[in-house]
């Protein structure tokens, strides 16, 4: 009997150790490791830690810190991509926008990089979506509440109109966010902007690493893109970092 109990205990301990080995690392701990490495100016180590965090989840802060690591290693184009991601996730996150502009300035592209404007700059797309949903239902309730309850809400029509305006603004902001997500950053050193989606297609012009471009669509393994200057063409999918690529 004692032997059996002992064997069970050993088996349980072994299973626990195995489970601990296979347990996923804690993203908060990884993030802190990255911060400590950054503070010690071990930027490559910090970059690895932040990349591991991104495998577990995304946030504006992680993308921003990773962008800083890359910028400290003079990888401005990829840094700009991560600042754009951070800015897209949290438009009110001013440091991300400021560092994005700095990265663009370092690459001499300060006029090419897009930024959000108007209502989209106030809230993230998720929050605007929630605002849109709430304002939609509130609008319905304010306008049609007499069909549900016996009493009349004061200023029902005014509040319904306000809800409708908020709904329209939300939709506009969501569209702005969607358009912002169409942007991408050229990741290859030199990229040929092809006139057709084919390897043998002649190049119309050349883009360099860090150039921001808008993705218009996909075709046969190529992205149909438009440059900040308005030139359209095709680029291999492996040659750019699309912002919406998650």
């Amino acid at each position, binding site marked *: 009997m004692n032997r059996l109990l002992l064997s069970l205990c050993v088996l349980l301990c072994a299973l626990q150790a195995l489970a601990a080995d296979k347990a996923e690392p804690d993203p908060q701990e990884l993030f802190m490791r990255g*911060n400590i490495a*950054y*503070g010690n100016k071990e930027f490559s180590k910090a970059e690895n830690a932040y990349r591991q965090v991104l495998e577990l989840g995304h*946030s504006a802060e*992680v993308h921003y810190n990773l962008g800083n690591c890359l910028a400290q290693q003079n990888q401005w184009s990829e840094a700009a991509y991560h600042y754009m991601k951070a800015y897209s996730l949290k438009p009110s996150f001013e440091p991300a926008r*400021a*560092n994005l502009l700095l990265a663009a300035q370092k690459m001499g592209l300060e006029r090419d990089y897009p930024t959000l404007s108007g209502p989209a700059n106030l809230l993230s797309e*998720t929050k605007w979506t929630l605002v849109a949903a709430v304002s939609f239902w509130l609008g319905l309730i304010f306008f049609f509440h007499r069909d*549900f309850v016996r009493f009349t809400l004061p200023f029902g029509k005014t509040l319904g109109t306000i809800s409708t305006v908020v709904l329209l603004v939300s939709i506009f902001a969501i569209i702005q966010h969607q358009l912002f997500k169409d942007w991408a950053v050229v990741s290859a050193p030199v990229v040929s902007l092809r006139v057709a989606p084919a390897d043998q297609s002649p190049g119309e012009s050349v883009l360099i690493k860090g150039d921001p471009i808008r993705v218009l669509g996909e075709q046969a393994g190529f992205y149909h893109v438009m440059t900040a200057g308005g030139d359209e063409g095709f680029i291999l999918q492996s040659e750019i970092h699309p912002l919406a690529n998650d």
Partner: protein
Amino acid sequence: MNVVHRIPFLLACLLTFQTAGQNLAAEGIEARASVNPSPVMAGTLAEYVVTFEGTSRIPELLKPQVDGLEFSDQMGTSSFTRIVNGRTSIRTQASWGFRPTSQGTLTIPARVVRIDGQEVRIPAVTFRVIPMDEETRQRAFLRVDIPDGPFYVGEAIPIRVGLFARDDVNLTNIAFPESEGDAFIHTEFDNNPPRTRTRIEGRLYEAFVWDLVLTPIKTGPATLQFRQNISLQVSDPNDRFPSLFSLNRSRSESYTLASQPFETEILPLPGTNQPDSFQDAIGHFEVAAALSTRELQVGEPITLTLSLSGSGNFDRISPPSLPAWDNWRIYPPKVDFVPEDEAGLRGEKSFEYILIPQDSAITEIPEIRYATFDPASGSYETTVLEAEPVTVKPSEKPLQEAPVFAPSASAEAEKDSIVPDSLLPIRPDSGTLRTAMGALWKTVPFWIGNGLFALLFLGTWQIRQRRRRLSEDDRFARRHSAERKIRKALAQAREAANQGDAETFYESVRFILQERISHLSKRRVEAKTLVTSDCIAILQDAQVPDNLHETCHKLLNAADAFTFAGIAAHKENLLQMADEVASAATALNRHAK
């Protein structure tokens, strides 16, 4: 032999002559070199031509390198073939344009090239570069106004570069002046310089003026000269038909204008007695400091703005480095410059520091020293900003220790900076990590949530509509209130039929039919008061189908027979009638709707 047959023969002869000529020529290739025009006038464009006799091939020739001459990068080529009395002579030419940058006798040296395996010697050319004649010099000239020295390395010196073109001369093209000499750097030339008209020695000139800031970058003897390429439209003095058809024939001539060479000695900044607070500010400045508030709280940021106003090398001034004050956390400053002139020589440069007191024992902002160098006096001047008394209240919040993180209190400062001078610091918190990165409105839970809300909305609306109908539609309300009783009576009737309880059965049947038929009445009638004849009349009025009418009539008659004559049906008949009552009740209800 006709003409057609002679053509191949003639072509063969020609080719034979050509080949023979080339072979003959290859045996004796000669080279000549010349400069056109000669002598060359300083500031004008000339041409160096190398001519090869006896070959159609031009060897690979590098641009000549001669001190005092600036050759163009592009080589011009031409080739001529002549056949005179059956003798073929071939001549090829290579040429470069050049501008002399010095005067006197110059020589383009000889060199040897290899053509078709043969070494050919290009002879040297010696020519004179003569000064620009007075007439040409008066047409256009370049003048640089530089203030008197001495000049110190790093100093900002305002200079004026002016291109003067005589009023009767038509300038067709001008390039930016270019400086010669590695001891200075200067600000960029404006694309649209101010144009003025001025009178010099009695002649009217059009002047293009650039105001620049010159900065010496190394010490010792230094020379500065500006050169500028221009093109002038010049009337041809040899034109034989100047007035014919009022055509004024003219030609374009290119010149390189040069300013008078400026020679000076660049002095180093005095090394002795250089104050520690000197941050490369050279000029005449006034230093001031401003504190956002004197009543502070531990952990709450304040701004300290140091400003330098006056004239000097604003673009090279580094932020004053504040000494390490005890109990203060100091962040790198935000730099701003407001120029008062286009060259940026005068203005005000400010450095806005964010300071966070760490201890309530602080009583003052310590003294700040800032040293500048005045080139006029050749000495350093140190401005001492006296210590500012402040009061610091203790904080209610614990202080954070995050040296590499952006303090939350400086968020406002970050907001103001559009493009920061350096990377803003990393964030200490990871924020809320999300696994899904897509738009919320593209997710299933979002639409499930909204769908549930929509169902709730519709359900509430349906209930409200039903209640409203019940209160407004009397027939509907009666039908609705009787519905449960009818269902109960139907169940009762079936059970009574099963048990053979005729009394209960017929009572239930009567109740069901009375209720259902009362709903068909156009008037409001009490169901219990309806007798069989009333029921039949209502059924007729309601125009129910004949079979339904007959069924109802039969059932009511059966109920009457039991009530008034005591004639009860058999159990099987009761069960059959129970089915008929159920279907009649359903049909009557459908008809009532």
